[in-house]
C-alpha cells in the first residue's frame, strides 16, 4: 500500500518521569466521587491547562463497580498526556481518595491530594487545590521536550467500525495496518459479547495476527496490537481506551455526537449518511475519495492531533463516563 505516512506533529511531546512520551501537558483534577465534582470543576476553572474530570459515581457502589472506578481513575491519572494529577476527595466515600492518590503516586506519576472534609469545606478545598496545581505545574516544567514518532504512541480505536460494511470498514483496517507497520501500538475496543472482530487487518509486522486480548482500561504490557474488551457505550470505550494509555483516540463517527475525552484528543472520522451534517465538526469525512488518500488523511489527522489542539478541545467539548456494572445502591 505504499510507504507509511510519516508522523507529522507540529509540536514536540513531553517525556515524563516514567519515560513515556505524552502529547498533551494537562493537569488533571479527579474527584474520587461525584460529591467532590463541583469542587474539582471550580479548582480547574480559569486554569487553561487544568482539566477536571466529571463522573457520576458515588459512595453507593458495590465491590465490582468501586474497583472499576478506581482502575479507570488510576489509568487516567497516570496517563502520559497528564503532567500531574490532583485528587479531590470528599472524605466518606468507598473509593477512598487517599488510596486513589497513592496508587497514582505508586505508578510514578506526580500527584497531590485535597480532601473537602479534611480541608474544612469547599472554599478551603478550592484554595488548597489551586495551590496544589501550582506545585504540580512547577514540578512538571522540568519534563523535557521529546520528538514524537509513531513508535512512541498508543492509538485507541473505538469499536463502531467493526460492524460496518466492507467499503467503510476497510479504511479503518488499513489505518490499523499502517499504524502497526510504523511501530505504533494499537488498542482496538471490542464490544463484549459481540462476534464482530477486526477484519481485514493484515497485521504485517505484528507477530500476533489476531490481536492480544486486553482487559478494559488496562494498559498493555508491551507493544503491538491489542483487543480491549469494552461495553457498547461510546463514552465508556473512550474512557477505557484512555485509561489503557491511548495517546490519541480514533472515533468512527456514525451515531450520537462528536465528543472528546479529557485525557486524549479524539480524531473523528465521519461515516455517512449520518455524519454528513457534521462535516464541519469531524476531522475526516469518508466519501468516494480513493482508499489510499482517505487512509493518508486519517493518519495525518492523527499526527496533527498530537501537536495541535483539536477543534473539539477548543470548544471544551469532552465527556466521560465510567461504565457501571451493577446498579447503584
Amino acid at each position, binding site marked *: 500500500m505504499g510507504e507509511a505516512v510519516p508522523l507529522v506533529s507540529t509540536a514536540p511531546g513531553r517525556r515524563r518521569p516514567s519515560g513515556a512520551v505524552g502529547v498533551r501537558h494537562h493537569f488533571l483534577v479527579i474527584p474520587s466521587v*461525584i*460529591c467532590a*465534582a*463541583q*469542587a474539582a470543576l*471550580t479548582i480547574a476553572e480559569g486554569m487553561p491547562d487544568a482539566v477536571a474530570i*466529571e*463522573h*457520576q459515581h*458515588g*459512595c*453507593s*457502589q*458495590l*465491590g*465490582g463497580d468501586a474497583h472499576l472506578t478506581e482502575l479507570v481513575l488510576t489509568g487516567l491519572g497516570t496517563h502520559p498526556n497528564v503532567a500531574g494529577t490532583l485528587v479531590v476527595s*470528599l*472524605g*466518606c*466515600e*468507598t473509593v*477512598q481518595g487517599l488510596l486513589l492518590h497513592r496508587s497514582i503516586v505508586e505508578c510514578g506519576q506526580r500527584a497531590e491530594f485535597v480532601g*473537602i*472534609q479534611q480541608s*474544612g*469545606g*469547599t*472554599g*478551603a478545598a478550592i484554595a488548597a487545590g489551586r495551590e496544589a496545581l501550582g506545585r504540580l505545574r512547577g514540578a512538571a516544567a522540568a519534563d523535557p521536550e521529546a520528538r514524537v514518532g509513531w513508535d512512541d504512541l498508543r492509538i485507541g480505536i473505538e469499536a463502531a467500525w467493526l460492524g460496518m460494511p466492507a467499503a467503510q470498514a476497510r479504511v479503518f483496517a488499513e489505518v490499523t495496518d499502517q499504524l502497526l507497520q510504523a511501530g505504533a501500538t494499537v488498542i482496538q475496543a471490542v464490544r463484549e459479547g459481540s462476534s464482530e472482530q477486526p477484519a481485514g487487518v493484515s497485521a504485517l509486522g505484528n507477530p500476533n495476527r489476531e490481536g492480544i486480548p486486553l482487559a478494559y482500561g488496562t494498559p498493555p504490557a508491551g507493544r503491538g496490537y491489542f483487543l480491549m474488551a469494552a461495553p*457498547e*457505550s*461510546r*463514552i465508556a470505550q473512550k474512557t477505557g481506551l484512555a485509561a489503557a494509555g491511548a495517546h490519541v483516540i480514533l472515533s468512527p463517527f456514525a*451515531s*450520537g*455526537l*462528536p*465528543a472528546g475525552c479529557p485525557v486524549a484528543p479524539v480524531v473523528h472520522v465521519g461515516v455517512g449518511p*449520518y455524519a454528513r*451534517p*457534521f*462535516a*464541519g*465538526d469531524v476531522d475526516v469525512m469518508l466519501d468516494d475519495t480513493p482508499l489510499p488518500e482517505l487512509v493518508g488523511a486519517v493518519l495525518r489527522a492523527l499526527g496533527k492531533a498530537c501537536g495541535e489542539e483539536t477543534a473539539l478541545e477548543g*470548544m*471544551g*467539548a*469532552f*465527556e466521560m*463516563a465510567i461504565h*457501571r456494572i*451493577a*446498579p*447503584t*445502591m
Partner: protein
Amino acid sequence: MEEISLYHRPTGGWGVRNHVLVLPLVASASSMARAVARGTEATWVEHDYEPLHDDLPRNHERIARTLVGFATNPNVAAVLLIADTGEPGMLLEPIRAAGQRADLVIVAEAGGLRGAMEQGRDRLAPLLSHAAGCCREPAPISALMLGTECGGSDALSGITANPALGVASDHLVDAGGTVILAETTELIGAEHLLARRAASPAVAEEIYRIIHRYEAVVKAHGEDIRGANPTPGNIEGGLTTIEEKSLGAAKKGGSRTVGEVVEFAVRPSTHGLVIMDTPGNDIEQMVGMVAAGCQVAVFTTGRGTPTGSAIAPVIKVATNSHTAGRMRDNIDLNAGLILEGTETLQSMGRRIYEAILAVAQGELTKAERLGHREFAISRYPFGILDEAATVR
C-alpha cells in the same frame, strides 16, 4: 392559613425558584447543553445516559420519566431540551403536554455542533424572556413538597439532625404539605417501624416489598449489603451496622402516617408523608425526588457533603457543631446545637421548618451560592430479579 409567595405554573404546580433549564436528553448532548447555557442566566445539568441497543424497556421508561419530571418540576419556568437525534427528542411532547414551556434542539438536524450551538442560543432567548415575566403570588403552604435526604451520616445523624428534620416534616405534613422519605437501601432494618405507621395494610405491604426488593437485588449480584453500607466514612463516624444507620435515617420522615409508597421519580398522588423507592446514592435520590415534584429539600449530614441540585434549593443541616464549623461554606443549619443544649429537638425542628419556608420564598442556600448542580441518571436496578423470575 399562612400563605407564602411562590411562582404559579401553567402545569398547576407552585415553584420556589424560577429557573430556565437546558436539559440534555442523552449523554452526548451534555457538552452542548453546557455550551448553550454557560454565560447566560439559564442553568443546566449533565449526565451519562446513552440509550443502547440492549437497553431494558423498564430502564428507558425510568429514565424518560426522570427527565420529563425534572423538566416539568414547578421550579422550572421553561426548558430547552438538547438531543442528538429526533428519537430522544420525542420527550418534548409529554413535557409540553404537561403544560411546560419547552423547546428542543436536535443537533444532527441543526447543522452540526456549531449550528446547534447557535440554534440553542436562539431558542433559549425567548425562554429567558418568558421566565423574566414570571412573578411570585400568594400560595398555600400545602403546595410544598419537601425532599428529605441524609448523606455522610454519622452516629449523631439519628440523634440530632434527622429527628429535628422529622419535627419539621411533621409541621409540613400537618400544614397539608408533602414530605418524601426515600433511600430504600438505608431503610433496611427499619421497615417494621415504618410499616407500623402505614395508612393501610396495602401501604405497609408496599413498604416491605420495596425494602426486600433492594436486599434481593444486592444479594443477586453476589454482594453483601454490608459491603456498601455503612460506608467507611459512616463507620469512622461511629455507625456500626446498617440497622443503626437505617433506624437513624428513618427519623427524617417524622412521626406521621405513611400515606403512600411510590416508585422512583413518580409523583405522589396524595399529600402527607410518602415513601419513595430510590437508591441510597445521594445524587440519584435527589434527582428522583425533584423529578417527582419536590421543590425544596433538606439534607442532613454528619461528615459534611456539599452537593445540591441545579433546580431545587437543598438546605444542609449538620448533625454536629464540629462539621458545621469546619464545613461552614456548605452548611446552612447546625443541629449540633441540640447537643450543646442551646436548642431542643422541637426548637431545632421549628428552625428547620422556618428555613424551608424562607428558602421557598427566595433565600439562597449555601449549595446554590456555590453553584452546585449535581445530577445523575438512575438506572433500573431490578433487571436481575426480573430475569430470575422469568427463568422460573
